[in-house]
């Protein structure tokens, strides 16, 4: 099964943003962002779109499947 990888950490670093700040912007807990970055949680479409909106990129740019 392909694994979902994310570039959230990369974009967060680029925007000089903390996990806590991103979590507040999209209305989730800091733990959720941590699990997302470590590939331990697959987000819903809404959450993925919310995060993409924060960084002003497409969902495909932020989340990719790796075989």
């Amino acid at each position: 099964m392909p694994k979902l990888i994310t570039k959230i950490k990369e974009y967060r670093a680029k925007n000089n943003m903390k996990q806590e700040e991103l979590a507040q912007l999209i209305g989730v807990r800091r733990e959720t962002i941590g699990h997302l970055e470590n590939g331990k949680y697959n987000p819903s479409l809404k959450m993925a779109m919310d995060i993409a909106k924060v960084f002003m990129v497409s969902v495909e740019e932020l989340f990719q499947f790796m075989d």
Partner: protein
Amino acid sequence: MSSKLSLRKKIIMRTISQSVVILFSGEIIMRGQHDMLTKIIAFIPIVFFLSILFYTNRKDCEPRDEMARFNQLKAGNLSYSITLCAIGLVMFYALWFKTSVVISLLNLVFIFVAMYILNLAIFLFYDIRGN
């Protein structure tokens, strides 16, 4: 600026306070005494429960996000399966040894609280480990 109450802490506090109330209530009902002291003692867990409820509701809390909901659902499903297995095991035991199983009210309270704590533990396991 006051800090926000962590969702995990809120769930732990509520579960423990509710468990204490259930245990105390079970213990008091088992005694079967209705003297003044028993009535006063009965108020202690209720006050404890209400103060924790007041504290957790008043203090700003983290949002109950989708991961927390998903983990609670998973924990609920697993607790339900474990409970069904336990009931099945007791019924099997009763049938196999052709004996009747009598569970006292206090034991029932203990079982209920144990299930409640187990559910919390499973939730915390999923929430800390990730999916």
